[in-house]
């Protein structure tokens, strides 16, 4: 037994020592290529994942046995053409640059159907569509009046009128709608019989609850109104340079809650105010607000325009965006100023690491996680990568399929394009009425819009149903989306 044991031990040891270098070299990408000069060549690979999966793969015009998702390994360095195709879908192609030891990863290949399906959700003519960001609610307006507003819950596919029919105020004209991301509330300024009213709606429930809080707006129409959360205690109305705090439950208003500010934002129970040379915060529910300086200095004076006002948006505790009324976009990361003017909107991704930014003419990606290239002398911070610059009237844009694609409208056509393939032309998806809004929900994979001819409320399938099953088990409430443009 001892001899047998020794024999087997040395045999296994020999096998192990022989296999180790082979496996390690294979794992690093080395293959034995007898035709090459060196004999052993370091290869690269291409990794493909498509939606829907199961698509055929052509590599350098040769059909392969693999179907997506797949990894094409042992590829010699150089350029390779890759085509992914699926029956009844538009094929996808790319030129992949394979480098030795590296992987070219295409893990978000979206195969659009040749015929894009749309369905009518509501057979009724609507004039406007507006959404409440990061909630499941859309507001459909057929007449510009309160009675013509329908609330659509895209998650539950549910429809209900904002105001029950037959009520007197149904005829009131809608002047303005204030909404806040992640909040299922809407503050609507209406005008009827010569008087303006502020109506506070809670959109949850079978019938949206409402309350007339016009008394709280004694000093005219504010520039902006913000609140926080699903059960906001207070509303904050921003006037020229001051902030009033409104309590709808107690029906009280604290005028000049904070004064002499040029911008504000609400985050985690605190109100942040921007002054000339300082950024401070106060407790939202404080009786007497005590200001605590968050940051300050001359650089703030240089950064923020004196003649502008700003909305402060906390993506996370350490990622803050400042949106100027004049169309500028700033952040608390170098180089601070990202868009000087003409900002039309922005939309963060689900992980709050990237932000889609657009103006009327271009769409770009702001990546907070992007690192400075190694060896760079100048500390330059992050930059917007403007991957589409051929727009003329871009109004809305949304991330699709993670951050791999973007859907946007340019004038009255909706397009889909990859964020990384700037040479590729955007694919036209559908058309919408001029000036109309649109909305894409990653959770359902559908684009919600109005039909340009009939005005019907439509849903167009962008992501196939298989993808949606993955989302069933994800968090229930609210996709994180941009504030209204």
């Amino acid at each position, binding site marked *: 037994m001892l001899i047998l044991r020794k024999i087997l031990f040395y045999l296994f040891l020999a096998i192990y020592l022989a296999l180790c270098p082979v496996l390690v070299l294979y794992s*690093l990408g080395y293959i034995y290529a007898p035709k090459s000069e060196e004999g052993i060549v370091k290869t690269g690979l291409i990794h493909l994942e498509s939606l829907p999966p199961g698509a055929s793969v052509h590599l350098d015009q040769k059909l392969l046995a693999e179907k997506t998702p797949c990894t094409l390994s042992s590829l010699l360095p150089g350029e390779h053409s890759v085509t992914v195709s699926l029956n009844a879908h538009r094929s996808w192609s790319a030129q992949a640059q394979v480098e030795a030891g590296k992987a070219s990863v295409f893990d978000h290949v979206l195969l659009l159907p040749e015929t894009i399906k749309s369905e009518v959700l509501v057979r009724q003519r609507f004039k406007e569509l507006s959404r409440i960001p990061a909630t499941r609610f859309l507001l459909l307006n057929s007449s510009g009046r309160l009675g013509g507003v329908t609330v659509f819950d895209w998650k539950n596919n549910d429809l209900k009128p904002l105001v029950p029919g037959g009520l007197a105020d149904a005829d009131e004209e809608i002047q303005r709608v204030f909404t806040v991301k992640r909040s299922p509330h809407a503050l609507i300024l209406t005008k009827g019989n010569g008087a303006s009213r502020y109506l506070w709606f809670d959109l949850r429930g079978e019938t949206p609850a409402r309350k007339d809080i016009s008394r709280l707006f004694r000093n005219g129409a504010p520039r902006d109104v913000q609140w926080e959360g699903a059960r906001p205690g207070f509303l904050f109305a921003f006037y020229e340079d001051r902030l009033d705090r409104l309590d709808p439950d107690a029906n009280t208003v604290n005028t000049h809650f904070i004064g002499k500010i040029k911008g504000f934002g609400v985050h985690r129970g605190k109100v942040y105010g921007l002054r000339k040379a300082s950024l401070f915060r106060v407790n939202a529910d404080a009786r007497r607000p005590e200001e605590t300086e968050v940051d300050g200095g001359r650089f703030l004076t240089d950064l923020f325009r004196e003649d502008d006002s700003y909305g402060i948006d906390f993506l996370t505790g350490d990622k803050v965006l400042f949106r100027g009324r004049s169309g500028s976009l700033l952040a608390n990361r170098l180089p601070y100023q990202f868009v000087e003017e003409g900002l039309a909107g922005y939309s963060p991704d689900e992980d709050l690491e990237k932000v889609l930014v657009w103006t009327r003419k271009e769409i770009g990606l702001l990546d907070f996680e992007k690192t400075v290239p190694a060896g760079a002398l100048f500390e330059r911070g992050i930059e917007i990568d403007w991957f589409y610059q051929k727009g003329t009237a871009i109004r809305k844009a949304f991330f699709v399929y993670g951050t791999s694609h973007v859907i946007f409208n340019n004038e009255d056509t909706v397009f889909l394009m990859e964020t990384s393939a700037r040479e590729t032309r955007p694919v036209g998806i559908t058309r919408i009425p001029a000036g109309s809004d649109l909305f894409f929900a990653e959770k359902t994979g559908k684009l919600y819009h109005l039909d340009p001819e009939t005005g019907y409320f439509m849903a167009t399938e962008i992501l196939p149903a298989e993808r949606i099953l993955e989302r069933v088990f994800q968090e229930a409430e609210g996709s994180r989306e941009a504030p209204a443009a």
Partner: protein
Amino acid sequence: MNFVYSRQGLRGGERVLQRFLEVIPGVMSWTLVIGFIVTAFWQPVIASIFVILFMLSWVMRLFYYLIFLMLSYARLRYEKDTDWLSRMRELDRLPDAATEEPGRSSTAKGWGARLSCWSYRQDLREIRRREAFPPPSSDIYHLVLIPVIKESREVIEGNLSGLLRNRDLLKRMVVAIALESRAPAEVKDAVRALKREYSGRFLDLLVVEHPDGLPGEARVKGANASHAAKAAGEFFRAKSIPFENVIVSCFDADTVVGPDYFACLTYTFMACPDRYRASFQPIPVYHNNIWKVPGFARVVETGSSFFQLVEMTNPEKLVTFSSHSMSFRALVDVGYWPPDMISDDSGIFWKAYLHFDGDYRVVPIPVTISMDVVDAGSWWRTCLSLYKQKRRWAWGVENFPLVLRGFLRNKKIPLYDKCRHAFKLLEGHVTWAALPFLLTFVGWLPAILSGREFSNTVLYFHSGRVTQTIFSLSSLVVLGTVILSTRLLPPKRKKFNLFWNVIHSLEWLLVPVILLFLSALPALDAQTRLMSGRYMEFWVSDKRRSKTS
């Protein structure tokens, strides 16, 4: 050599050395585990390559073990029909008249019988060559020590019933129940009742009560067993039975031996030229209540038996474990079991090894002894009890510093043997604690912790594929162990339908979880306690036996 195999009463440099050596196994285990996590985060390329090399070595090791597991199991099978009593009598006719055709049962045929005969012939030749002729079998006595503290009557009686099945040797068997004085009254009453009932069946049945709190003793089984052994020694002196003719077997209270255990033991003792420098280790199995416990407990204990089966094929590195036997002469010479160590079973081997300057070995004997699987009533309590039992077994790491101190003092043991034993002792405990953690997390950790840069490399994609393939090969080993387990386990008392038979086979899929929580974690716990100086108290495993078992 004047070396006290104990960590008690150390002073100065010896104490520092003892603490230093106590720290080593825990540090190594933790370094392996944490080091891998840090490497996976900081250098994912190196970690991925390590993953591949590690997984390959692991699978090859599994196949290596599987071969010896099968060989060991084969030996168990082919020796099952061996007539050990006949062989004993043949050995009595040494040096001249012993034939080289040993007795076998009339049904034994084929390759098993041939192998068994070949093994017997090897034994005869070795005895003749070294002229190490054994005492006559009629002069050989057995001392069976059964330490008891809170075991029930049913458990102890099961043990005695097993002994009684060795009919031919009962009149040369002395049973000593080593009873702790702190045992509950009902246990004491039960033991006394058993003495009245059974003492006439053996040469004698002694009940030796071990007083509590004797100087130099901890509350451990070894102290109790040693006390009983000393009392038995007086018995043998009174009867003028030389210690050289006595084989002592120290059994756990729940041990049940088969009808041929003592015959096999006697034969092996007689056939071993170094009989006074050897311990005799049977294969521990846990069949007493194996079909009554939860599946995970069954898998754990079967795995332990398999490990012992594999170890049996490497007697050069075998160490005594659990119930075992040895020459009483050797036991007395080395000073009995350590009275202050929990791991007295392995401790006695090392103590003897050091005492005899490396001239001591363990001889595997091809019979099984059956014990109880831990059963604490409910699923969860059984799980906890099992965890504590494994931690107690893993506390065998306490031998490492003692053995190394002994090696440093001893100038007669060859350096090669010292290094070999020290390495195996350390490596065994470290892999016991760290390996399952690495196995569980090693495959995916670099991929999770690495940044974007690594995920765009060929290595990122290939390492996953390679490790997955290697891991799939290990499933063949699992399949082999499942098949072997179905053959090793006793027949089920209750007839299970096909569904439950499949379920019992599928229990082996629990191995990854069991390895982690009921093997590695207790081992790491034990090593960490040793490292931090929190020495363990003895804890007796929960064992239950129904009256009908």
